[in-house]
C-alpha cells in the first residue's frame, strides 16, 4: 500500500484513461457474466482475456502478484473445506460417481474435485478486472464513480473519507504502539505469548477509539460548515465528461452483462464436466 493509503498505481494506459465509473461498470458486467456459468472452459478463457487486459494496463506484476497469491490461497482453502464437508457434491450435479478416496461411507469423488477446480477458476476469473478497477482508478475518482453508477453520494463519499483518513489512523496506531512499547507492553513475537500480545493490541484500541471519536466530530463539523449534504446531489471536482472510449466500453459492458443474463435465464449455470 502506498503512502496515500490507496492501491492506485500511476501508468499511462488505455485503462487508466477510462472513467472510474466505466471500470466499475465493467467489473459489475464481468462478474455478472462469470456468475452465469459454471464452466471451466469459459473461466479459463476469461482469465486469459483478463490477463491480457492487465497486460495492457501496464501495471507492474510485482504490485498485483500478492493479490493473486492471496486469492490462490483463499480458493485452495475454500476447495479443501468444500471437499471435506460436501465430498460428493459434484457427483450430485453430474449424477456420476468416480471415487478418488474412499473411506467406507465417506468418499471424495473426482466430480467434486473438478467442481472445486471450476469454482476456483471462477473466483480467479473475477480477479483481473477487480485488480484493474482497484489499481487504475485514482482514489479521487472512487467516490464519484460509485455515485455515477447510482450509489447515493453521502454513502459514496464515505469511501473517499475512509481513503483520506486510513493513512492518518495508521500513523496514529503506530504512535500509540510505540508509546505503549516504551512502557513495557509486549507487541513483538518473543516478548510474550500470542494471547498476551493480542490482549495488548486490544489496549491500543482504547486511545485509538477515543481519538477517532474526536476526529469524527471535527471532520463532520468541517464538512457541515462547508455545506456537505446541503443539496440532493452534488458535483465532483475530479469528474470528467465521458469520452467516446468510455461510451464504447460502457456499451461493451452492457452487452456482456445482457449476454450473461440471457444465458443464465435460458440455459442456467450448468456445471460442465468433461469426463
Amino acid at each position, binding site marked *: 500500500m502506498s503512502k496515500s493509503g490507496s492501491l492506485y498505481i500511476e501508468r499511462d494506459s488505455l485503462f487508466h484513461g477510462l472513467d472510474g465509473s466505466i471500470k466499475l461498470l465493467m467489473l459489475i458486467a464481468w462478474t455478472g457474466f462469470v456468475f452465469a456459468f459454471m464452466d471451466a472452459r469459459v473461466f479459463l478463457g476469461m482469465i486469459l482475456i483478463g490477463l491480457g487486459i492487465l497486460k495492457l494496463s501496464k501495471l507492474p506484476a510485482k504490485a498485483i502478484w500478492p493479490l493473486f497469491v492471496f486469492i490462490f490461497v483463499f480458493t485452495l482453502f475454500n476447495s479443501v473445506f468444500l471437499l471435506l464437508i460436501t465430498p460428493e457434491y459434484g457427483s450430485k450435479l453430474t449424477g456420476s460417481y468416480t471415487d478418488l478416496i474412499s473411506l467406507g461411507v465417506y468418499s471424495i469423488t473426482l466430480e467434486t474435485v473438478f467442481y472445486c477446480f471450476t469454482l476456483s477458476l471462477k473466483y480467479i476469473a473475477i480477479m483481473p478486472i477487480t485488480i484493474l478497477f482497484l489499481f487504475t482508478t485514482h482514489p479521487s475518482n472512487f467516490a464519484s464513480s460509485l455515485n455515477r453508477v447510482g450509489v447515493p453520494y453521502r454513502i459514496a463519499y464515505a469511501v473517499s473519507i475512509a481513503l*483520506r483518513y486510513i493513512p*492518518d489512523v495508521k500513523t496514529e496506531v503506530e*504512535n500509540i504502539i510505540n508509546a505503549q*512499547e516504551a512502557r513495557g507492553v*509486549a507487541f513483538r513475537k518473543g516478548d510474550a505469548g500470542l494471547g498476551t500480545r493480542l490482549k495488548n493490541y486490544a489496549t491500543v484500541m482504547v486511545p485509538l477509539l477515543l481519538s477517532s471519536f474526536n476526529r469524527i466530530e471535527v471532520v463532520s463539523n468541517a464538512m457541515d460548515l462547508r455545506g456537505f449534504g446541503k443539496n440532493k446531489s452534488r458535483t465532483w471536482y475530479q469528474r470528467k465528461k465521458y469520452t467516446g472510449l468510455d461510451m464504447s466500453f460502457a456499451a461493451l459492458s452492457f452487452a456482456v452483462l445482457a449476454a450473461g443474463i440471457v444465458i443464465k435465464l435460458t440455459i442456467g449455470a450448468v456445471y460442465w464436466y468433461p469426463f
Partner: protein
Amino acid sequence: MKSVVFEDVSFQYGNLDQPTLHHIDLVIDEGEKVLITGKSGSGKSTLAHCINGLIPFTYKGEFKGRVLVNGKEPSQLSLFAMGTQVGSILQDQDCQFVGLSAGEDVAFALENDCVAPEEMQVAVDIALQQVDMLPHKNHPPQSLSGGQKQKVAIAGILAMDVPILLFDEPLANLDPASGKKAMETILDIHGKTGKTIIVIEHRIEDVLEHGFDRVVVVDDGKIVFNGTPDRLLAEDVLPGYGLRQPLYVEMLKLCGVAAREEDRISVLENTVKYKDQVLKKYMEDRFTDQRPNNRTILKLQGVSFRYFKEDPYTIEDVSFDVKEGEMLAIVGNNGAGKSTLLKAISGIAKYQNGSIYYGAENQQGEAGNESSSSPVGMQRIDTWTAKQRALAIGFVMQNPNHMITKDMIYDEVAFGLRNFGVGKEETDRRVKEALKICGLYEYRNWPVSSLSYGQKKRVTIASILSMGPKVIILDEPTAGQDYTSYREFMSYLDQIKCSGIGIILITHDMHLALEYADSGVVLSGGRVIAKDYMDRILADNWIIGKANLKHTSIERMGRLFGVEDLSSFIAYFTRRVTSKTCAETGSGKSESRQAAAEREEVSHE
C-alpha cells in the same frame, strides 16, 4: 454594516451544568481584524461556535440573547446557510482537510453547491493562487506540511467567497515559521478583499505583531477587555487573566516602563523611546554566567538514520551530550528531523550509523584517551530494544491521549512498572513518589477522564517517571496548553530536572526553549547546525535563518536598541522572567561559556 453582533448572549451546553458564556455584548464591524483571546476554557471557542452556526445547530444547549451575523440570526437560518456567511478554519488541519488532494479540498464546498466541474477548475486555481499553493494542487494531504494544509483550508474558504473569515486557533499546530506565514497569508487576504477577519488564539504575540484592529479578551465566559492592542498592552490586562504578553512588552515592564495607549507599543519599533531606560537596567545587571557542569548521562555519536536504503538520511551524523540535571532543547522546524531523532534515541528507529551511550560518565578517564571508543562509565545501548531502553530513557509523547490506556490515575502511573514485573510494594512506593513530584498525589484515586489536558500531560510524565529513567524525552511538551498551564507544567519539569534527571525537550516553541532549556541543539535538514546556550542561538542571525527559526521579539528589540551583545541581553530577560536555579546539588563543577559553546558549520553545500 455590522458583521457580527452579540446582544446579551448567554449559552449553556446541554451536557454541562454551568453556562459557558455570560451576557456577552460584542459588535464587530465589517472589514475589521479582531483577535479574540482567553485561556483554555474561557469560552472563546464557544463564542466562535455562536458565530459560525455550530451553536445552535450542532452543539445543543440553552441559548439566551441574540446573535446577528451580517444582520441575520443564525437560529433562523440553517448551518448550511451560515456556511455562506462565515468561513471557518479549524485548528486541526488534518481533520478539516477532507479532500484527497489540495485541489479537491478547495473544491469541496463548491461540489456541495453543485457548481459545474469546468467552473470549479477555474475557481479552485484562482483560490490556490491566492494562497500561493497552486503548484501543490494535485498533492495529497500526506505530503503537505501543517502550514500548507492550512493554506489549502484558507483557499477553500476563499473559493466560497464568504464575507467573514473565522480562524479558530490557527497557530495551534504550526511551527513558528509556518505560523508566521499563515498570519501573513491571512492579512494579505484581508488587504486584497477587505473581508472581516476574526482570529481566536491564545498565542497573542504571534497575532499582534501582524497589526490587528482590536482585541477582545474573554475570561470565565465574560468579555473582560474590548479595545485596541495598544490599550491592551498599556493597561497590563493580559497577566491578570493568565495570558502572556509579548516578550518585549514583558521586558519593558520588567524595566519599569509605564507605557500609555498613545505610546502605541503594539508596534515594536515604537518602543525605541524606552531604549535608555531599558539599557540602563540591563547594564546594571551583574551576573557572572556560572552554569553547572554535571556528568554526561546520554551521549550520541554520529547517529544517522534513514527510512529506506534508497532515501537520503533523515538525520545524519547527529552528536550531542545530555547531562544529569540538564534541560536540553532540540529545536528546528517541521521536517528538520526532530521526531526521527526522538525515535532513534528511544529505540523505535534502528539507526544505521553511529552510537548512543548511556550511564553516568566517569570523567577521570577523559584526558587524552581518544583511542578508547566507549566513554568511561557509559554503556553502549545501540542493541537495546525500545522496551529495554524504556527503563533508562523515558519518552513522553506530545498527545497524552495516545499514552493513557487506564481509567484510574494510579493504575496509569503503575502500568509500566507492572509490565516490567516490579513488586507490589516497590510499585506503590514509586508510583506515589512520581505522583507527588507531578503534583497529582491527591488525585491518585481519580479517573483520568476527570483531568484537564495539562493534568493529563502530567499523568503521562508521572507514568514515565515512575519507571526510574535517568533521561526523559518530551515531544512538544507544552503544545495545546495555555500560558498558565504551560508555566505550571514547566515548573514541575524543572523540579524533575533538579532531581538529576536529564531532560530533552523536542520543540519548535522558541519561548519555551529560551526560558527553560539550559542549552539547545539546533537541527536543520537532519543535521546539527549548532550546539549552544539558547540565548546565543536565538541571537545568531545565521542560525535563525539556516534553521528557519523565528526571531524572538526580545532579539528584535535588542537590535532596535543597538545592543551589541544580543545573547546576554536575551539571557538577562530570561533570568528576569524565570529565575531558574536548582538548589545546589553539590556535584559538578562550573565551566565557562566559551568552552561549552561550539558551533558546527554544515560541511557540504
